[in-house]
Structures are given as C-alpha cells and as structure tokens.
C-alpha cells in the first residue's frame, strides 16, 4: 500500500469508529472494501501513535439513578513565563474530577468541564481547589441543566422513520 493509500485508509477507519467504537473489524473491512488485517494493523499503529486515544462509551447518565452534575467552568489565568498555559493546565487536568480541559481564545483562557455528585461538590471544588490556584485570576461556573446532543449523538427523543414502506 502506498503512503497515500494508508493515509486514506486511516481516515476512513477513524471516521467509521469515531461513532461506533465496537464495530466488528471484519464487517468494517467489507464496508470499506479493505482487508481486515490491514485495518487491525492500522488501528494498532494509530493506538501506538496516540491518534486513537481510547475507546469510550457514550452514556446518558440522566437516565440512570446515578446523580451527577456537570459544569463548564471558564477560567482566566496568568500565563507563566516560559511555559505559557501548559503548566497551569496540567495542574488542573490532574484532578480526577476534571473531565476535559481546553485552551481557548476569547474572554477567558481555559475551559474546564467537570463532573461531581452534587452542586455542592462542584462548588467546593471550584472555591477550594480551582480558584485557590495561584495563577487563576477568576472562574465562572455554568451548570449543565440538560444534554441534548453529545459527541455528535442526539440524546433528545429521536424521530421514527416516517417514510412510506414502499415507494417507486
């Protein structure tokens, strides 16, 4: 396979597994017109290279009895000489309750997404840990009230197939 073919194959594999991490490799090979061993090798390579970072499950926790609160926290920080935002980002992402950390443009610097068991737990984290960090200037916390769509999947009620059963 040429380098271009491999690149193309990688993209089509990634597109296919992005929304279906459990797809059967033999089936995927049929669908993409590729060889199953080639796909398995490409996936192993991409895992090693850190392109594929994990295989997760999309869960709508609101439909379970498990109580969870998700918050988006906008954080303004002072960048540190020589390290920019990296070291403060690392200090924040090391907390296990923090799910995602993004460096963003605009009126603040870091977007932190975290999950807690209650509003109180999240508030305590923000007040006692996040705001207490030396280079953090301010935090604005937004609690998520409802998730409509997550990672490209609509969690709200979906429509049934309303097409007629037979059309020419």
């Amino acid at each position: 396979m040429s380098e271009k073919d491999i690149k193309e194959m990688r993209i089509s594999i990634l597109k296919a597994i992005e929304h279906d991490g459990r797809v059967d490799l033999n089936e995927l090979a049929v669908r993409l017109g590729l060889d199953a061993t080639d796909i398995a090798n490409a996936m192993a390579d991409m895992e090693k290279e850190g392109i594929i970072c994990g295989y997760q499950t999309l869960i709508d926790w609101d439909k379970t009895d498990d109580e969870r609160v998700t918050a988006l926290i906008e954080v303004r920080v002072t960048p540190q000489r020589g390290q920019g935002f990296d070291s403060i980002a690392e200090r924040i992402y090391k907390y296990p309750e923090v799910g995602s950390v993004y460096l963003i443009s605009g009126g603040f610097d870091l977007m932190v997404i975290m999950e807690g068991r209650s509003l109180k737990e999240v508030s305590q984290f923000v007040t006692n840990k996040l705001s207490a960090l030396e280079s953090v200037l301010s935090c604005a916390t937004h609690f998520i009230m409802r998730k409509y769509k997550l990672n490209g999947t609509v969690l709200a009620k979906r429509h049934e197939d309303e097409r007629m059963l037979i059309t020419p």
Partner: protein
Amino acid sequence: MREPIAKKVTDMKPSGIRKFFDIVSEMPDAISLGVGEPDFDTPWHVRDEGIYSLERGRTFYTSNSGLMELRSEICRFTRSHYGVSYEPASEVLITVGGSEAIDIGLRAMLEQGEEVIIPEPSYVSYVPCTIMAGGTPVVVNLKEENEFRLTAEELEAAITPETKVLILPFPNNPTGAIMERSDLEAIAKLCIEHDIFVLSDEIYAALTYKGEHATIASLPGMKDRTILINGFSKAYAMTGWRLGYACGPANIIEQMTKIHQYCIMCAPTTSQYAAVEALRHGDRDVEEMRQAYNERRRFLLHEFKRIGLTCFEPFGAFYVFPSIKEFGMTSDEFCTGLLMAKKVAVVPGTAFGDCGEGFVRISYAYSIENLKEAIGRIEEYITELRNRK
C-alpha cells in the same frame, strides 16, 4: 351518464408497485427495504435556508423557469461536475421533481405515434408519460449478463424510422446499473446516425460508486440533442421538496417552459431557495451520504454472496437487484412470501417492467443495523425455500 374518463387513461396500467404497496400497508410492523428515497434528512443548512426564505416572506411565485440564482448555480454545477455548459437564461428549466421534467420533455417533443425507446427495468413513469404524450413506447429489455447496461446492439435493434426519443435512465432505478463513458459513446454514435433525441434521467448521478458519473450530454455532438434531467431528491435527500430540473437546447427548453407555465406555473419557491444553498454548500454532504451508501452497498453484496443469492455488482443509485430465479417462483410470489413469512418488504422486479421477472429490488437507503436484521430474515426465508425443494 356518459363515460367521464378518457380511454387512454383507463387503458393505462396502474403502477405495479401500487399493488404491492397495498399488501405491505396491511402490515405496519414489517421491516421494509422497499423505499426509493434516502433515509437521510435533508442537510440542516439546506432546511435552514428553506425556513429562512419563509421567514423572509419569500412566499411568492418565481419566474416560470425558476429563480435565476438557482439556474445559474445549476449551470455552474453541471459545468464543474459533469463537464457540460448551459446558458442559465435559456437552457435550464426548474421543475417539480425530475418527474415533471420527464413528462413535459416528452410532451414537448412527441408527435402522435412517434416512438420512444425505453430500456427496462426502469422507473415506472416513462411508459405512461410517453403514452399520455401521444407517443408509442418501444421497450428494450436489458439483460443481467450486460449488468443491465444498454448496449449499442440492443438500441440499434429497436430503432425504426419512427424513433424520435431515447430515454436513458442511468444510474438506474431499480437495477443500480450505470453507463460508463465508453458505453455512452457507442449509444451517442447511433443517436447521431439516426437523428434521435435523448432524454437522460440522471437523478442518481451523484450516487455513483465507480469513477465519476458521465453524462451523454458531454459527448461530442450530443448536447444539442439531449435533455439532461437531474434534481435534488436523491443527491441531497430532498424528495419531499419536489424539485428537479431539465437542461437542454434552448428551443426545446423554451417549449417545455410553455407547458410548465400553463400546468405548474413555477416550482415551489421555498424549495428553490433551499436548493441554491444545496448547490453552493452541499458537496460535502453529498459525499458523506455517498460514502455511507457505498459502505452499505458493499455490505449487502458481501452478505448476498454469503447466503448464496446471485447478484451482479451495481455501481449506482441505492439499489441492488438480486436474482431469485433459483427458487422457481415469480418475483411477486417471492416478495409476497417473504413479506408473509418474515415480514420483510422488498419490491418485485416486475414493478419496473416485465423483464424484471426473476429479480427483486432491494433498497439500501437504510442503516446497516436495519440491513443486518433484514438480511438475517431473508436468509431464513431462502433457507426454508431451499430445504423445501
């Protein structure tokens, strides 16, 4: 009271698909692979543009030919995608779906008794529209061994001094067959030699899985004798918007526009505004849908091979057309049996012409999960049929 209905209408056969539709609708919990329209929704940015045009109060008629903006986009599109240039002001007509373009194209061109060559299996409207326009349909039965392409020999055998129009329905519904450039060249040669016009129904052009779609209009000498029909239904998943178009020589388009002006006035305005957006920014959506269809196509062909159902590899539209001849049943019997026994609806090949006997049309405008479930049931059904023998 005297007979209210014209004889040529009562003589018209009801669509073969209608009969099967009535049986299927008695069974609402059946899984269907019988639909001839995309399972995708119209891309949101296109729908949004339609909504915006309503909000803006664009609820008026457009010109008979359609919005100039849309005609210009169509010309840009046919030039960049299919290598054929048209003049927006005189060579394009926006119609209510590709179906209207077929109808008025035939009506504009046919004198009483002039012959129209119609390859079958194909979409259900060509024969009745030809008859309604006063023409005489001459059916060419396409063959599986030719992958249901129209060959020059078949065409030549059907040509008479009365032949005026050839309908060229590729990529084809129901077979999924395509015509590649070399196939078209042989056809074009005959058309020029015998002075025949072509009505090329290319509504599935965007859904081609082998090379680029080729239109006969782009071949030397053919633009002047071809009406190219396309639309938004299949490529952009816009069936319900009812929007298509015809491109062709100004003298034919002008007369088609006259008929269109009296019976339709203009195509739906909301749809026209949405279609402008589709042509301007819809290429990526089309490509994503095409890839999804292609995955399903490969999957189905693989599954057919696994369960031993004979099927040529189709490279267009979203249909496969497997043969059921080994079971010694008619297409109707096979489909009714499958529906009754396993609650899976597929369409008998005969709905698309007599030579569809021995075949069924299976649509893959369904998710892979749906297809898997349906194939599982088809496998059970044919295993039972084989064991019975």
